[in-house]
């Protein structure tokens, strides 16, 4: 078992086009580190300093991780992590 991570179109250049990759870890931070090992560069697109990037939405089992402790959000085998770039802009 693993944590399934769903990758949005714009980041699939890091995953050879794969829509989902397997990660592992007890927190979102660990899961991101584990996918970085095989898909170098992807972490930089998700994390800035010690925090999730402001315009990246991440969900664990459909729950916005901002309400689950951000990078410290707990994860466990069988969970699904969804990454969606925010749709945003400003005049």
């Amino acid at each position, binding site marked *: 078992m693993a944590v399934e991570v769903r990758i949005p*179109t714009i980041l699939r250049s890091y995953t050879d086009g794969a829509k989902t990759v397997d990660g592992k870890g007890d927190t979102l931070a660990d899961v991101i580190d584990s996918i970085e090992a095989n898909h170098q560069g992807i972490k930089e697109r998700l994390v800035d300093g010690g925090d999730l990037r402001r315009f990246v939405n991440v969900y664990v089992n459909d729950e916005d991780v901002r309400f689950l402790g951000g990078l410290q959000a707990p994860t466990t085998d069988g969970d699904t992590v*969804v990454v*969606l770039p925010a*749709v*945003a*802009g*400003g*005049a």
Partner: protein
Amino acid sequence: MYDAIVAHARRDHPDEACGIVAGAAGSELPSRFVPMVNAERSPTFFRFDPTEQLRVWREMDDRDEVPVVIYHSHTATEAYPSRTDVSLASEPDAHYVLVSTRDGAHEPGPVEFRSFRIVDGEVTEEEVEVVP
């Protein structure tokens, strides 16, 4: 579809309105209008509500659709992607539609309605054809 987008932009003026028009993957045909909440409720900024976005994106996945059009309004400036719009554009396959309500917040005032591709920070305008 054109009318629905313009009506949404007018309704939310002076805040920015935003949403998508979904279409079958690979078809390039915008067919399902989905107005979205602007979580910022701001005259100068918009952001899809993350929970609503997840729901809508999943719905598109289930129907084998993509966001063919991503639209938002500018309420005091021209219908052209701002620097923020360009730096945050995250769907290279989408047509970014901008509506400006600066001169026509209410019927029957004029609105600008323009469409762009935004790929790797590069903006390309494209012609808009309104199909009845």
